[in-house]
């Protein structure tokens, strides 16, 4: 895990994440078909597309849960294509998959211990309680019994515990009430302000676009649009969702 918590962000020339012509999938099922994509440092990149387009598969390929069948994955200058997921994570890659990335059978405190991954338990608890006092009150409670919003806050803590990471977030607002969604998106902003680069997948495309500086649209495993977030009209985006983009 990146411990270079320098106040001034490092000047990096290479992008945070770079995919070069990546094909990837599950067993015989190919999902990504030759995807190339770049996530710049210290900013938010949105990854949009209809369900089944391959967004989650792309994030899993970057974090190492899936190995690509073709192409290369680079994270901050290092070619990590052959690295295990845990090695990538120790180098500052933080993937928060869809659907409450927490250990439901562990307590909140134990989840934070896992997230600290060898770092100080007390620090992690203090940071979490400061960011979300509600977590601090429920340290001994089993994480599976938290509300959906609290579970998501706990999952996102991993991106917040360490500065200067490459964060991949998959559908953080899924199934949450609008008022909680506001909190979650606000928190994502805080995370980038700590120097982390963010690749964001979210079904609330308009919100994601409002935050992001760059955007990629995937459909059926191919990039069908890439550009600045402001260039993509909402109606145009919906058409791409409906197909034939």
């Amino acid at each position: 895990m990146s411990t270079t918590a320098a106040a001034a962000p490092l000047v990096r020339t290479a992008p945070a994440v770079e995919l070069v012509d990546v094909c990837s999938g599950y067993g015989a099922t190919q999902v990504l078909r030759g995807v190339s994509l770049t996530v710049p440092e210290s900013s938010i990149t949105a990854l949009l597309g209809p369900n089944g387009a391959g967004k989650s598969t792309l994030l899993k390929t970057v974090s190492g849960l899936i190995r690509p069948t073709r192409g290369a994955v680079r994270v901050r200058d290092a070619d990590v294509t052959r690295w295990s997921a845990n090695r990538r994570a120790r180098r500052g890659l933080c993937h928060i998959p869809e659907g409450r990335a927490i250990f439901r059978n562990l307590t909140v405190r134990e989840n934070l211990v896992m997230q600290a991954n060898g770092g100080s338990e007390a620090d992690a608890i203090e940071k979490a309680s400061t960011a979300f006092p509600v977590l601090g009150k429920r340290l001994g409670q089993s994480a599976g019994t938290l509300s959906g919003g609290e579970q998501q806050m706990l999952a996102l803590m991993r991106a917040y515990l360490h500065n200067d990471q490459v964060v991949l977030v998959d559908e953080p607002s899924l199934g949450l009430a609008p008022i909680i969604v506001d909190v979650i998106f606000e928190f994502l902003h805080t995370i980038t302000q700590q120097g982390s680069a963010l690749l964001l997948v979210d079904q609330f495309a308009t919100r994601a676009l409002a935050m992001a500086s760059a955007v990629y649209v995937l459909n059926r495993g191919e990039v069908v649009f890439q550009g600045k977030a402001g260039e993509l009209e909402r109606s145009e985006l919906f058409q791409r969702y409906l197909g034939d983009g």
Partner: protein
Amino acid sequence: MKELLPFIISGITVGSLYGMAGTGLVLTYKTSGIFNFGHGANATIAAYVFYWLHIEHGWSWWLALIVSVFVVGPILGLIMERIARQLALQRTSHKIVATVGLIVLVQGIATIWYGSDTLPVAQYLPKGSDSFEVGGVFVSYAQVTLTVISIIVVGALYVLFRYTRLGIAMRAVVGDPDLVDIIGANPISIRQMSWVIGTTFAALSGVLLLPLIGLQAIALTLLVAQAFAAAAFGAFNNIPLTFLGGLGVGILANVSKKYVLDVSWLSGLPSSLPFLVLIVMLLLLPKWRLVPPSSVERRPPLAYRAPLRFRLGTAVPVLALFLLVPTFAGIHLSYFTLGLTQAILLLSLGLLVRTSGQVSLCHTTFAAVAAVAFSQFSVDHHMPWLAAVLLGALVAVPIGALVAIPAIRLSGLFLALATFGFGIMVENLFYPLGFMFTHLADGRRMPRPDFATGDKAYYYVVLAFLVVICLVVVAIHESRIGRILRGLSDAPLAVATMGLSTNVTRVIVFCISSFIAGLAGILYGSSANFATSADIRYTAFTSLTLIAILALAPFREPWFALFMGFTAIIPGYISGEHVNDYLNIIFGFFAVQVSLQGGPTPMPQKLQAYFNRFGRKPAAVATQVEAPPPVAAPEGGPGLAIDGLTIRFGGLVAVKDVSLRAPLGTITGLVGPNGAGKTTTFNACSGLNKPNAGKLTFQGRDVSRLAPARRARLGLGRTFQRMELGETLTVVDNVALGRESSMAGGKIFSQFAARPAERRVTHAAAWSAMETCGITHLAELQAGALSTGQRRLVELARCLAGPFDLLLLDEPSSGLDRAETERFGEVLTRVVQERGCGILLVEHDMSLVMKVCSYLYVLDFGQLLFEGDPQAVAGSEVVQAAYLGGSAAIPAGAEPEVQS
């Protein structure tokens, strides 16, 4: 009470050791998902190393203990983790066979090392033979030491598991290994730690139990297997409960010793009690507590079948060779007869394990029960020989059903565990009794038929049985029961939702298998003239060897039985004290090996090509397609109606008050963002989950309470998002299952065989469906070898071949490329036009949905957000917002559930 105390105290002592072994087992099972039947074998290895160092080389006991437990244990643990890691992707039956193979392997090695007689070991612990008196009861220091050690060790594990970082990581791996991986901890090293700890626990229990029972491989292995009962008490999950379970089992078994002193027929109770507890616990535990943690499966290797002509051409010389055996076998003839009987036994086991994918670890028990019954019919009741044989084997059938029926609700692993316990329990409890093998050294007399009392004549009798059984087994495989069994083994969920009552099928195959096993047991007994409880062919342990042999026997049915016959003959030609033990080492080792690679190595391509040329196997037969089968689809029927459907999982409301209509003759779409509750709604329609509220009506009939198979037989068919295909079957066999599953239905006789008319209908339906989907050219290929797009089409064709009026298609286009999706859409439209059936389509690809659906329902947050025709949906602000987010996302009155 006072006279019970000594029994309770010794019960606590052994019970705490069982508890310790049990917690080790639970730890490894929880963290890896692999249930280690060989847990006792690990204990045995450690005990033998201890014996070797301490007794043979005179090392002091503590040094020998440190080496055998804390050096050997961790090494074994690391080996086990490697095995478990590779097994994680294999089918359940392979997971079971691999660790059973370990038992056979270790038993072989250990027996060669120190023989099969029990070697006594003096208590080596300090003051081992001394005791003190408490309240009038003598307690030995060894008992106290053993109990204290167990409590400390298990307590330490509990603390580690609960409160340390490693323990947290271990529990995290249980919950979500992938998440552990992306958090930056290595799940493999965490699992290694738990295997090291778990196996060291087994080693420690083996070394500590050694003085109590002496050195004997099978006894040690099975004794530690009593920890299974302890683990069952903790639902294979809870460490403190497992330890308590161990104590309970120990106390119960020892206290029962006092009571059975006077009741001679119960003398086997103490040693069988833990297995009785195991079986009872398996029956009592609710099903959801016993779901095995891992469900990932690698596709099985492709099976090859030589052309019929080649097989027949081989059968003739093989049979001729068998007929000639008595002319050259000489004094070895009895081994050949034995080989034939064991080949029959392996055929019966193969039918169960290979064809239906269920594992029985008590097949010799069926053989023993039938042999005894035969002897009673024949000797005591003077029945004619053949009648006694058939009736005797028939007695094994209810015994098989007795094991199968209660265990059938459990998954494969726990069925195997129940049979394992059952075999040992019957052997300990009933074998020595009067109505079984009796107390006599000669056991029971097993007559041969009057016309074949000589060895040569009897050989031919057994050969005749083998030939007939081979034909029967082949016939079973060629008939409906064989086809649905293969489907059941590969894709149980699919055949159930196509109309097959799978529990009936499972019990049928268990019964057939136990009947044939019974025949083998009788024929074997008659070849030896007597059947005794000590005969290795009847002991429960041999069931384990059989499983190992079956794992590595090459070829398909019935040819794999040849291998068994061959192995049985070897001891006749190679003399030596340990031939069988060396064979067990080979069987055990290769059973592990074969299971790790997911089945026997497929026949080399070159050999296949040669066989094919020899038999001139024709390329896929272009069969004449008859007129499409009559599908009883009333024009424009009401189809499926869902009213007020609500489904909760724990506190989460997955579907809330959803009502929709899917009439026949049209395609209705069900769309919505991820997690909107679409698949949950589907599963409720086909009966795979239970709604909390709401009503499901199909063609005007309330189907809310019917089982999946019943709904399918009424005309409700479906496909799966995660495809459920018979991977080892050909495409045409897969597609035909769509029709045949519902014809087989829930009746015993209809599951057995197809009537000629049904055969024609199935054939026509399958070919017509394949033609509709454009996959006739793939008919003879194996489904497991196809691309995703082709597999989706096979699944659709299978659904089309069924007698279904409404098809529920769950994301049928996922994994298809653009061109494939387009063709897929055309097929759907054509099917509805031609057959008048209805389709309810869950689909992510909005362009496909817009093109083919005539009416759409949009779900979000488990609620109906919008309904209308595709144009209305495309123009809807509400739908746009649901898909893209924004201010209009939440319509009035449709507040999403917020958990509290």
